[in-house]
């Protein structure tokens, strides 16, 4: 039943630089970052994707552009998922924020900013949420030294 909805969505999203394909039982859409807000509006208003599951990123250290920013959406009515993927460069790791459409985007974008250093245009509060003030760097980037410690308390001896 839901497959019909995803098939209609796939046809609707095709074009404008977007490449929707089916992968692992969900619809995965590769898109340019300029198309994000329009696509999200369409998902939410026309297709009923009312739940924003997560935003995260993938670091491809040898690839240019280096990062993929990945959004997941869920429809609590039709029980289907959609994944949006956008490539951004290391020099300009900025995508549009979804805080105007989904309230939960506030915290998830802060986490993605902590871990990967992706900036979200329109999210005014990108303070650390899992990390602490004074932490330098982004620990889930592949070039972060994996044993580097940034302690808050001075060690004994």
């Amino acid at each position: 039943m839901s497959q019909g909805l995803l098939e209609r969505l796939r046809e609707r999203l095709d074009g404008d630089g977007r490449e929707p394909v089916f992968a692992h039982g969900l619809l995965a859409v590769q898109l340019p970052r300029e198309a994000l807000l329009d696509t999200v509006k369409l998902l939410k208003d026309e297709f009923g994707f009312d739940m924003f599951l997560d935003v995260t990123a993938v670091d491809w250290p040898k690839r240019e552009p280096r990062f993929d920013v990945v959004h997941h959406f869920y429809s609590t009515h039709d029980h289907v998922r959609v994944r949006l993927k956008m490539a951004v460069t290391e020099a300009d790791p900025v995508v549009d924020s979804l805080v105007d459409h989904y309230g939960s985007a506030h915290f998830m974008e802060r986490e993605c900013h902590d871990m990967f250093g992706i900036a979200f245009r329109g999210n005014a509060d990108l303070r650390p949420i899992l990390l602490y003030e004074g932490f330098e760097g982004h620990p889930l980037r592949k070039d972060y030294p994996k044993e580097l410690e940034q302690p808050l308390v001075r060690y004994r001896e």
Partner: protein
Amino acid sequence: MNEVNEKSGAFEYLTTRKDELVGWARKFSIFPYPFVTACCAMEFMSVSSTMYDTDRFGAALPRFSPRQSDLLMVVGTITHKQAPILKKVYEQMCEPKWVMAFGVCASSGGFYRNYAALQGIDKIIPVDVYIPGCPPRPESVIDGIMQLQDKIANASHPIVNEKF
């Protein structure tokens, strides 16, 4: 003075060393403060309830204020973000005080070797007894408590120390 005791020849006085007496008293009244941050808590609950029963060692009653406790049990992973809180809790405890690192994460960081985890609480506070295991069996915890009791019993217990 007491006729009954005079006749039976029972003890009225005994001589001992002050350190032995105080150590004996202290080792059976360990009031723990459980600083519980992770999954080792399940094992902590198991060891403190009926089946294993740390009350047998006088170490059952957890105090929920560090100011009233003698033993800081650090149960679980300590992250760098958590470390200032642990340090503050330790500093709030009154002398005499002891620290137990419960499980590998508190002892050495365990299998967490990354940006987030503190590699053993002994980097920031002194530790008296380490209990290995992920999580430790209740028997290991009891062994740790008994080793701590031996340590307390054999230690010097100054009435006034340099920190007082």
